[in-house]
């Protein structure tokens, strides 16, 4: 692409209905290449549903998703993954019965020869600080470590865009700090969208924040501005209704 101003990812009137419930309501969203964006919002605001449409796990009821100027709404998850979107889901989605190395190797193998995949797996294990546990089945690891394995798998696929759904959930303070560091490392070369509840964590990493509320975007601004905003505070504390 020659036009650097074109967004890496954008959605237009993206909508998802579950029966009569509007989970995501006509969302217009845009992400620049190399950007790091945080999505916040109370439970049920539609963040995870929005993510699942981006990754192809849900087929949107209506609307458009454009990634690198290609329409991807309704494509199968593996097709979207091949275009260069990697996702860490909310509940760790890993191969529990296989060891840590095998998990990362499988992620790297998609685009690489077996031996290159082995080299990539070694590098990634170093980056997620799990080299010493490479032969342990992932099911035996702690929740935080399994999150890292999943982030490692996303990185091993070398995607253009990384989606992380609650990467710091259930982590200790030390693990959270290391995760923030890892995210900044990734952002050096990749665009990210991160769904997160932990405001402390968002302060550590965030640049621009998008607030979801009742399936729509409530506001979108710099982290400081958003976190000071009275409406955002009300939404989190459940004071008033903003449609």
């Amino acid at each position: 692409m020659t036009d650097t101003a074109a967004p890496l990812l954008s959605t237009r009137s993206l909508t998802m209905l579950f029966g009569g419930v509007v989970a995501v309501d006509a969302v217009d969203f845009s992400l620049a290449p190399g950007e790091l964006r945080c999505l916040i919002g109370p439970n049920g605001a539609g963040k995870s549903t929005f993510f699942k449409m981006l990754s192809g796990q849900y087929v949107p009821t209506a609307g458009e998703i454009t990634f690198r100027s290609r329409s991807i709404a309704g494509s199968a998850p593996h097709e979207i993954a091949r275009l260069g979107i990697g996702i860490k889901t909310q509940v760790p989605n890993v191969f529990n019965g296989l060891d840590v190395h095998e998990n990362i190797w499988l992620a790297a193998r998609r685009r690489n020869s077996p031996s290159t995949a082995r080299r990539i797996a070694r590098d990634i294990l170093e980056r997620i600080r799990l080299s010493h546990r490479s032969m342990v089945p992932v099911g035996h690891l702690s929740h935080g470590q399994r999150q890292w394995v999943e982030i490692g798998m996303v990185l091993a696929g070398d995607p253009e865009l990384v989606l992380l759904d609650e990467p710091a959930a259930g982590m200790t303070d030390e693990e959270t700090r290391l995760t923030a560091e890892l995210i900044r490392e990734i952002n050096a070369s990749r665009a990210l969208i991160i769904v997160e509840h932990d405001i402390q964590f968002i302060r550590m990493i965030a640049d621009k924040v998008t607030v979801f509320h009742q399936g729509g975007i409530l506001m979108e601004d710099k982290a400081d501005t958003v976190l000071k905003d009275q409406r955002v505070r009300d939404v989190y504390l459940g004071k008033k209704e903003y449609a």
Partner: protein
Amino acid sequence: MAVKTAAQLTALILAVVAIAAAPMLLDLFDLIELTLFASMAVLALSLGFIWGFGGILSFGQTAFFGLGGYAYAVAAINFGDSTPAILLAIALPAAFAALLGYFTFYGRVSDVYFSVITLTVTLILFNVVNSTAGDEYRIGDAALGGFNGMPAVPTFNMPFDPAAVLEPEASWYVAAGTLVAVYVLLRLLLASSFGRIAVAVKENEVRASLLGYDPRLIKLIVFVIGGAVAGLAGALYVNWGAFVNPTIFGLALSAQIIIWVTIGGLGTLIGPVVGCILVQYIVSRIGTQQTFNANLILGAVLIGFVLLLPRGLMPTLQHIATQAGSRLAYMFSRDNAGRAIADRPAGAE
């Protein structure tokens, strides 16, 4: 890792030696019985592979077994040579598995319904073939024979030499050799990238697709390989008895395959082979006594296994062996540690 590979190689060599020596050590009756066991063990491998490593539970593996058997019988009668008949017994079930798998996996049929569909398919085939009695149902020179089946099917001959029909000893070598060859090929396949990806799809289909693998295609390929192996087993079975009838598609056999795999151990390749031979041995011993009902004993054995050894025979044995091994290693290391301390002269610090 290296120890494990060495142990596997040793076991493989022992198996080959045992197969080679069997005709000299056993009388003809036992050898012919073992030939049947080996043929059925190939069928057990086909389900053990797709269920244990592809996560595909087919209740109708007999559909491919039966198609392989009938394809072999019809082709052998028409061609008079077993060589192309065996190839057809592999190709036809594989093609049928591709068709069935395409519509079920790409149609996003869930696991439970998939199992029911495969069961239904084998029963449909049973009924179709069962109702082909009469002279109008013939393919070339081969009359399908309905519920009576097809008697006097030509057995295996040397490749492209119909005059050189194999003796029972040679048939044993073919059946047991096929079993070993299929086992080794599946083992190599599982060690390859494709095999590792197939296991990943079994572990977590969603994650595999989010990594960019198409789970439908992977499962389809696994299923087709399973169908081809089951078809080959069908040809071996027909060669063993020189006869085929519709019970080859039946419910009793399709349930038995699942019992073999469950008892031997799901998630291993050797388990289904061991389970198959063990169960068939028990059934044939009971059968000669006539004191007990074989199905009753078989049911009790299955319930016993599900309750006491839910993982099956081979995984349980492997678990015991690793436990004992690590205990030994632990004792050994403690022993060494003790000696290391003792080696250091007192007051050396």
